[in-house]
């Protein structure tokens, strides 16, 4: 595995209280990724600010999901995966020696394409699973469950059946349960990998509302195939594209409004207007 650049210049001092929106600032610096000898991503620089929803768009196979998975070190779960560059969370390299792997993943939560609640647990246990899994004790467990479910917009639907198995929820509810589960460990950043691709339009709208409500509490990065969705929920947008047999690159990034109304690159214009992809 290619060793990532360690960031020695930045201080490892505890993070100062940030005024304004809560959440962490995540920054990918010159990130490249490989699976075996195949390079799938090259030189990606994206800054994902707190209080801003960042959308990663692009056609299939352009590396946007891979990039998302480098942001909380899920990329390395694939045995042959390697990477270069660094990812900074509030200035600290998450691949550096100062941060523990489990701590990185706790602070940078992830919601997956398909809802994946733990089938052997009840709804309440699912929400609190992160505490159990990270070995944390919380005084007010019930309060935390309620708060997390409220933030994910699911509380009113499940308040009377918290002890029911999570598998009995609908797909959209399961996905919001997964969001609540991620929020319960109080992450600074929430990564979403096409969270609505397995859902119907109504559930999609509920998730999008949830995203907009959460925007000021946690930094959100969302991968989506749906350009209307990117326009609806994101303020910052990055367009990924991979030419044939070449790694994916960021073609263009900027404020979402500008990217969709007045793109600089003709390929971006073609993509956002639905001429390919």
């Amino acid at each position, binding site marked *: 595995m290619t060793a990532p650049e360690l960031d020695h210049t930045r201080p490892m001092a505890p993070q100062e209280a940030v005024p304004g929106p809560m959440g962490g600032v995540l920054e990918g610096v010159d990130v490249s990724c490989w699976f075996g000898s195949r390079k799938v991503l090259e030189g990606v620089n994206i800054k994902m600010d707190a209080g801003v929803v960042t959308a990663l768009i692009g056609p299939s196979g352009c590396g946007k999901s891979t990039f998302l998975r480098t942001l*909380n070190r899920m990329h390395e779960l694939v045995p042959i995966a390697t990477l270069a560059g660094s990812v900074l969370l509030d200035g600290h390299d998450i691949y550096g020696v100062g941060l523990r792997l489990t701590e990185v993943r706790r602070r940078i939560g992830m919601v997956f394409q398909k809802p*994946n*609640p733990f089938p*052997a*647990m009840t709804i309440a246990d699912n929400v609190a*699973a992160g505490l159990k899994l*990270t070995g944390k004790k919380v005084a007010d467990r019930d309060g935390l469950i309620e708060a997390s479910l409220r933030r994910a917009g699911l509380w009113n639907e499940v308040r009377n059946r918290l002890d*029911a198995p999570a598998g009995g929820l609908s*797909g959209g509810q*399961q996905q919001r349960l997964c969001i609540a589960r991620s929020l319960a460990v109080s992450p600074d950043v929430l990564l979403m990998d096409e969270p609505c691709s397995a859902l119907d339009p109504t559930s999609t709208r509920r998730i999008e509302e949830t995203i907009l409500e959460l925007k000021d509490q946690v930094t959100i990065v969302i991968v989506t195939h749906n350009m209307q969705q990117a326009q609806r929920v994101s303020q910052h947008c990055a367009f990924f594209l991979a030419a044939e047999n070449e790694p994916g690159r960021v073609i263009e990034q900027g404020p979402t409004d500008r990217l969709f109304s007045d793109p600089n690159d003709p390929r971006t214009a073609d993509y956002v207007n639905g001429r390919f992809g």
Partner: protein
Amino acid sequence: MTTQETRALTAAPGASPASLDAGSKGAPTASSTGPSTGSPAGPARRVPPRRRPRAWRWSDIAEAAGALAASFFLTWLIFNRLLPFRIMPLAFFAIWFVLFLPIYWFVTKDGQGTTAAKDRVATVFVMAGALFTFTPIVFVIGYVLYRGLKSLSGNFFTQTMQFVGPLAEATDGGALHSIIGTLEQLALATVIAVPLGVLTAVYLSEIKGPLARPVRLVADAMTALPSIVAGLFIFSLFIKPHIIGQSGILGSLALSILMLPTVTITAEQVLRVVPGSLREAALALGAPYWRSVLMVVLPTARAGLSTAVILGMARVVGETAPVLMTTGGTTLLNPNPLSGFQDNLPLFVFTQIRSSQESQVDRGWAGALILLVIVLLLFILARLVGSAGPGRRRFRIPIPGRGGRRRGR
């Protein structure tokens, strides 16, 4: 329910098959009330009768029964009037079946055409095959029940063979010493083999270390280990050098050798069907790998793991060869598995049924019956453990994102 609603249901993405079913079933019911209430949709029309496709109707049953009767009498005619000699009853059944097929074919073809006839004859073949394989099981269990119940009495569970002579009645004495021995040895073997087996399975499917391949190979090969070899192994390791004398614990050790590969391989297969997305979800929450295995993977596979344990127990509970060499066998009640000879049920059956005395053979059948009952209880236990948990669920990994399917059941 209107047609539009039914269509909407059909078109809705992710609509469960059950709701579609309900839609199509509900439609005729609703429209059948239409004429009496004055349907607003239009003039009253004749409602076609409600039916389920391919269900057996009375006419179908009559056809089958007629064909059965015709072939029966034809066979009877051949055997009892035409042939000059008598044939075994089994041949009667065979000829009856062979004659039934063409007769049934022509009867159905006459009434419903070639397609239906093919369908019916194929159904008969499949059902006959099922019956053919099921019959031996019924006979085996039925015969054990028949022979065992004859000599089974209350004192079978409360007495031992200590003071029972060779000429005593079959209902005298009992197998308390053997039952206690079996239960203790099985429990000890489980306690030894299950943690080892499950940990090995976790190593094979979760850690996937460099030794995974050889370990799996050895475990696979060990399933075919002759049980007498396991007994010999323990015998030559402990008994021959006089380290420990024959006792229950040595029987448990021999049994756990046989149990280990079964538990390992079943548990590994069960762990492998746990979706990787659940492991990812646990890791993405910041869990160390061992916690994600302990708190997510194992509980998700809980029901399957309990099945693995029960399968392992059922594999060894009836083993005779290993315990024959290691436990000693006795007619006395010895509740201490750690020292002294112990008996167990397979050994009890073995010693009783070898006797030339009819009463002892009968007692052996009773022992076999108790052994069957213990296995049955183990399987019932497995199902109970497997279905416990949040709500009542069998071992079934739900397909994420398709909650409707689950509710449809």
